[in-house]
């Protein structure tokens, strides 16, 4: 097999960078900041090189690098990308330097550890997306818990300790179940082929042969772990706490990338490894997804805290992704993947925007604001675009993802019921209600608080540098989504072909 080191460079850039940061003196704050941004940008450049050399017409994994790691368990360091993972890798490397930039002035204490945590987290996330060995995947999956715990716990808000521990325990409980399932799979493979294996490509062939009942349990273990991460209703309760208490950078990373690890896991592991169970449970899961869409939207509506509102809107948006994944049509899966990116961009932008005014006024309650359009016109425009993108206005990115998901789920043979689509579509309407209502209360009307005039100022250059790239992509995906859809088409189709090859007795 041809070896390609490019992805290894990509993966190790933030790891080495995070270690190097520790050697910089704590007092040299600007050096630490620049170094962090530099490392994250280098990772972004490498991922761009990967992108430009990537052949989107092929469905198999590319840039493969495999080294035997643990002989006795037949575990290898095995990484590669296909269209889906490449898109998420790009999202990760794109957002990380921006989040580091966004915290330039808001994080002052223990900056070194913060930069270390963010870079280490980036490595963990990249590892999750790149791994083609399920054991390697698990190691990265768990390893990123610790930096996230610290990011929320050290630099978070008032209830940060509660939120960080809740986050930690929720996600670990889920992932340990997955560990047992992973071991079970590997042991099963060893009984079947005589060789213990954690190689994902081999497991794709082996796992679907498990008897239906046991496959259900295995699927359940994996699914639970991913569903907690997504988070799917009713496992979402950790998310609002974590989001609200996390610092802006933490929220952006959390919404932008971390949650995608859950949805990515569904696409990469749950569907192809356990196709029969995935089809069997698809209606049930879709019901939960639709409940999540509506529930998240309704709860968003009554929030008085901006950050909490955006956090609950994530529950709603990610419900779409889960629905799209389990509708299992090419449109819906492509839509789900593009929606993962959309959510990363628009929710990321919303969190950044909330962070911008929070930094100035230290207030997040909607009632405090009002009439800021006159004080900060540019900011108000940016907030409008981000909100509309999140709502799913045609011409902006959110529309593409939601439209494809709704279209796909309507046609879905697996779900075979258009009521899912009807209820899910209502989520789009609710989104318009809660986001525009928030926008109205914050931006229009009279200036309620004279303080605002003194404290609130429009973007500075750094903030513009952070936000403009995000808005470019929000519009790009909205107007010309083919750039991204082409990338994921072959990979999505291949996963669906794989699923249907095992399940045509289900799909009459």
């Amino acid at each position, binding site marked *: 097999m041809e070896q390609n080191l490019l992805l290894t460079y990509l993966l190790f850039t933030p790891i080495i960078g995070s270690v190097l940061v520790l050697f910089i003196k704590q007092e040299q704050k600007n050096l630490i900041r620049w170094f962090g941004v530099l490392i994250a940008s280098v990772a972004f450049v490498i991922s761009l090189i990967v992108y430009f050399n990537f052949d989107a017409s092929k469905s198999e994994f590319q840039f493969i690098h495999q080294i035997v*790691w*643990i*002989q*006795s*368990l037949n575990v290898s360091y095995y990484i590669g990308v296909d269209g889906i993972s490449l898109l998420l890798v790009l999202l990760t490397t794109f957002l990380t330097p921006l989040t580091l930039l966004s915290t330039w002035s808001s994080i002052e204490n*223990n900056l070194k550890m913060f930069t270390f945590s963010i870079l280490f987290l980036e490595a963990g996330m990249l590892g999750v997306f790149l791994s083609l060995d399920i054991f390697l995947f*698990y*190691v990265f999956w*768990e*390893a990123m*818990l*610790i930096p996230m*715990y*610290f990011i929320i*716990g*050290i630099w978070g808000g008032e209830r*940060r*300790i509660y939120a*960080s*521990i809740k986050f*930690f*325990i929720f996600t*670990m*409980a889920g992932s*340990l*179940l997955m*560990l*047992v399932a992973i*071991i*079970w799979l*590997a*042991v099963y493979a060893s009984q079947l082929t005589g060789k213990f294996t954690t190689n994902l490509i081999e497991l794709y062939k082996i796992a679907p042969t498990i008897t239906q009942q046991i496959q259900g349990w295995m699927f359940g273990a994996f699914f639970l772990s991913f569903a907690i991460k997504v988070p799917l209703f009713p496992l979402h309760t950790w998310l609002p706490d974590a989001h609200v208490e996390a610092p802006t950078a933490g929220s952006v990373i959390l919404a932008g990338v971390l949650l995608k690890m859950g949805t990515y896991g569904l696409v990469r592991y749950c569907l192809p490894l356990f196709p029969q169970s995935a089809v069997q449970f698809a209606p049930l899961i879709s019901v939960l997804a639709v409940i999540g869409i509506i529930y998240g939207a309704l709860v968003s509506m009554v929030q008085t805290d901006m950050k909490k509102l955006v956090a609950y809107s994530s529950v709603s948006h990610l419900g779409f992704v889960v629905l799209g994944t389990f509708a299992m049509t090419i449109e819906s899966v492509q839509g789900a993947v593009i929606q993962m990116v959309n959510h990363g961009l628009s929710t990321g932008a919303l969190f950044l925007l909330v962070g911008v005014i929070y930094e100035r006024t230290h207030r997040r309650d909607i009632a405090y604001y009002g009439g800021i359009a006159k004080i900060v016109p540019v900011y108000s425009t940016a907030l409008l675009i981000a909100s509309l993108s999140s709502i799913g206005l045609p011409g902006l990115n959110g529309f593409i993802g939601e439209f494809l998901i709704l279209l796909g789920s309507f046609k879905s043979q697996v779900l075979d019921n258009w009521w899912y689509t009807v209820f899910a579509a209502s989520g789009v309407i609710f989104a318009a209600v809660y986001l525009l209502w928030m926008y109205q209360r914050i931006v229009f009307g009279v200036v309620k608080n004279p303080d605002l005039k003194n404290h609130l100022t429009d973007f500075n250059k750094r903030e513009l540098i952070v936000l403009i790239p995000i808005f470019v992509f929000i519009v790009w995906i909205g107007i010309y989504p083919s750039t991204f859809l082409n990338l994921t088409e072959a990979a999505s189709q291949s996963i669906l072909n794989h699923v249907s090859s095992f399940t045509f007795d289900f799909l009459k």
Partner: protein
Amino acid sequence: MELANLYQSINLIIPEIVLSIALIVLVIADLIFHTNKKIIPFIAGTGILVTAIFVINQFNYIGFAFSTATHTARSFGMLAVDSFGVFFKLIVIVSSFIIVLLSLASDEIQKTTDRIGEYYALIYGMILGMFFMITATDLILIYLSLELLSLSSYVLAGFTKLRDRNSEASLKYLLYGAVSSGLMLFGISLVYGLTGSTNLYIINTLIQNPHINLFTLSFATILIFAGIGYKISSAPFHFWTPDVYEGAPITITAFLSVASKAAGFALLIRFVKTVFVSYETNEGFWSLIEVFDWQSILVVISILTMTLGNFSALWQNNLKRMLAYSSIAHAGYMLLGLVVLSNQGLIAILIYFMIYLLMNLGAFLVVMLIANKINSEEIDDYNGLGFTSPLLSVSLAIFLISLTGLPPTAGFIGKLYLFIALVDAKMIAVAIIALLNSVVSLYYYVRVLKHMYLVKATASTPSIIPSTSNAILLLVLVVPVLIFGVYFQPLVEFAKDCIVILGI
């Protein structure tokens, strides 16, 4: 006994002989250098190192020492020297060496310089007891070595006399110990009554006789388990552990939690394997003689032990006491390796012990270094330490994360192999209970991190910078925890070489 046999036997117990000589040298040196006792720790350390060389050398030897009985053309001795035993001796000797270094760094121990000779002599007594416990294949010798270990530890638990809790620890340890060793002795006498032998191998063949009195045998076995369970602090014989661990000098706590536990485990595994297993299947599973269902009993004990340990640890405010409960929980995890009754499980236990040694001693080392400075082990006093004492806090964080069993630390590998063994033996339910326990343990380990990192440092938060030698010792324990978390092949290979238990 023939002379040739005696000569050969002596060859097989060279490490024990070296240890005894070193013990005598230590006592004499203590008398000679009574004005300047600085040399004593060095003699103790050297003795341990020399013993270690002979222990490693023992990998080349295999056989029974001090034959007492012959049975169908083969003779069995009082001691079995095999790679399994050598492995545990290594664990004991390595941890003893680290304990000597720990004692040098401990203020508590340094305050008792005038009695330092006794201190090391008693530690030697413990090591000797453990060595015999690990290799003994005769009930009488098992009992004697257990007593040698226990008596030395009773004294050491109350050694410093600096705190009231010291004496309390010692007395509690003694009382519980006396009861459990009494029970064990009763069990041994019942077994002797049933079989007419104290040799484990002969008992093994005799209890396969269908006419044996099952009730008496089961009863006797449970009594013997009381003695062993007390040493590994498994439920329901764990009650002494928190009090003793909290009250004893921290070096002794660390020693008890690693070495003494290792010896107890070695004894338990050897006892189960030689007495109750009739043969090994091709897949490496041990087939039990159908007189006594060890498996179910061990499943229950193991689950009880880890659950009790973890849930009790949740409420602790003293870090030493919390680590005591956590060590009970870890005994529960390790018992899982025995529960599956397979070579795979045994390998998992051995891997776990190597990692457990590093992370547990490491955690105690940090707690000790911090206690040296702030004279407290209360978790509340750790507030903000993460920012003022980076090296100690980061190390403690790594040890605790490893104890939780999260990648990329070695603790994860230990758990991983245990889970593999469980899944391999189709005991999924037990595996799930064990992992739920891990989630519980996450809460109390992370609580320490919370106090160190999430609570902001104040002006009164002390800044603790360990001396260079202590920092090196710390790194020697931390770095492997990280490396073995990523590259654990050598551990696995070594463990696979060390599963030979001399059997029928």
